């Protein structure tokens, strides 16, 4: 408990401080009806790090991300991106929604989906030039999907669809990447392809935040971890924060003894 209190007090302290973090959330509360999904959460993401947002089902992980981006309207709280408002910094933010949030029978091809990442840059009537098509193809190559450019999106496997979504985010050439469950229901090849791309982004100085559900890969994949269950539980480097005690608090005993034992090898 003491670790947790110290963390929360620390966050309390920089509530007032000026903040240049790539993503800083203050006192964020989001509710569906009368029940808060996220309650008074503070989160300051470390620049140039890969952060996992971890918590049980219904703990508000995706809600936190969506409210931070303004997709959902929060009840209370402020969000700043690199010290400015989200609206001012849209061009520096790339978002990868959950795969299940769209209809994959939509009449569109892989390359068209990636081109959507350039719409903000193209404006309403800007002509699509060879330069733009090359950019889109380069991003498809990065996720290993160049051969699929002309396919209808419904013909892809789940993992391939996820990689197309990642390519659409890459083509935006942002500084902050926010991904909602990119590893949910994907094959091993896709998981490897995605994590390689994310690590290369981090190595290029970008900030990456991922809503993640697989506790066994946290230590391998991430630098920082943010534990949430409606309220923020703990936040910090994986080695110091991804502890049995913090996980027990986050999951409220929902992790069985066997799961804990399996994790014990990877815990910080």
């Amino acid at each position: 408990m003491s670790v947790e209190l110290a963390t929360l007090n620390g966050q309390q302290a920089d509530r007032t401080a000026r903040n240049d973090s790539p993503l800083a959330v203050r006192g964020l509360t989001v509710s569906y009806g009368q029940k808060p999904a996220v309650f008074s959460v503070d989160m300051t993401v470390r620049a140039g790090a890969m952060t996992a947002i971890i918590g049980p089902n219904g703990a508000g992980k995706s809600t936190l991300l969506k409210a931070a981006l303004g997709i959902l309207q929060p009840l209370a709280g402020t969000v700043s991106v690199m010290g400015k408002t989200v609206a001012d910094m849209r061009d520096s933010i790339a978002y990868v929604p959950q795969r299940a949030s769209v209809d994959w029978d939509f009449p569109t091809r892989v390359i068209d989906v990636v081109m959507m990442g350039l719409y903000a840059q193209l404006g309403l009537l800007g002509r699509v030039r060879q330069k733009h098509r090359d950019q889109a193809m380069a991003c498809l190559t990065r996720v290993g999907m160049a051969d699929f450019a002309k396919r209808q999106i419904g013909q892809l496997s789940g993992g391939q669809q996820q990689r197309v979504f990642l390519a659409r985010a890459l083509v935006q050439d942002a500084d902050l990447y926010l991904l909602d469950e990119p590893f949910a229901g994907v094959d091993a090849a896709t998981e490897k392809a995605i994590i390689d791309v994310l690590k290369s982004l981090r190595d290029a100085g970008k900030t990456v935040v991922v809503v993640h559900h697989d506790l066994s890969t946290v230590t391998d994949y991430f630098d920082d971890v943010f534990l949430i269950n409606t309220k923020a539980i703990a936040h910090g480097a994986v080695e110091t924060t991804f502890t049995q005690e913090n996980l027990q608090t986050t999951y409220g005993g929902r992790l069985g003894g066997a799961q804990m034992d399996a994790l014990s090898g990877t815990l910080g």
Partner: protein
Amino acid sequence: MISDALLLGLGYNATLVTLGAMLLGMAAGVGGTFLFLRKRALVSDAVSHATLPGVGLAFIIMVALGGDGRSLVGLLLGGAVSAGIGLLCVSWLSTRTRLAEDAAIGAVLSVFFGFGIVILTVIQSMSAGRQAGLEGFLLGSTAGMLRTDAIVLAGSAALTLLLVLLLRRPLTLAAFDPEYASASGRNVTRIDLAMMGIVLAVTVVGLKIVGLILIVALLIIPPVTARFWTERTDHVVMIAGLAGGASGYVGAATSAALPNVPTGPIIVLASFALFALSLLFAPGRGVLSSFLRHRTFQKRVHLRQGLLALAQNQPIYEGLTMRLLKRAGLVLADGVPTDAGQARAAKAMLDEARWTIVRGDHSYEAAAVLYDGLTDLETLLTTDQLRDVDAQLARPQGVGA
């Protein structure tokens, strides 16, 4: 007579109306595409029915102000106002209460339409009301349309079409992935409002030509028709515009030639004819093509399984498999494989082995995803890739690459 009409030979007014209906059909098809892709097609039904009270009230107000109440622009403005109110009711009910959108549509549609019919009944009892011809707004009537009316309608339809083309990127984005659209700074509520504004404009322009009961068909049938022919959004938009334009043109011309036929139903039937043709005969998604593809596939599967059975000296039990093998000259009447049959069987075995390699190696992913148990790898891989695969085949099992 009809051929005269189709060749625009019925005079200036009829020509204007026909061209106006064509533009309306194009605007409706193009605008309706985004409604269809956003899966909110039925909202347009509520919008169109909600025009009726506005048209009636506009007539009463114009008569009260001393006019004869038949100014088309005035009536359409009235219709636009009440349709706008109906639209706001639907969106308020579905976002701010626990009612789902379909229930909200049902409630708004019937209440507004009922109110409109009551007002029409009142108008019937007014002295100026008998010649009002407001019933024409139910099913569309181009008879006796003034030249200025036709020009206004054609102009508005053209403007609407332009607006859709201008907004096609945000509309596509909001229809495919509203969360991403919102995260990249688009105001999805406002995009939806713009889409509904386009629908409202099409509906109001279409009131006189198609009528409020059937305008929904012109918004929905062309995009659904177009979807059979393509997997690309921009092509769906274009084909829907063409299908809608053709239906409007043929329908309006026909009804100009046959004075007692209401325009709306003819336009809808023309549009349905295109839909039916697409449903049956479109390559890829059409019914006939799916059926033929299924049959061809079934035959290939049987032939392949038969060949694999021959190669492994297994008995063939299925009649269809045997018939196909015999017809292709691969087995003799007594079930003994011919030379050609043995060669094909050996090739089938080789393909199976090659596929196993390809599906187990991540670098062949693009080809592996096309696996159907039938396709020859020669058609999917380059000669170099095939040589690599065969090299792996020759290597003893269990030895790494």
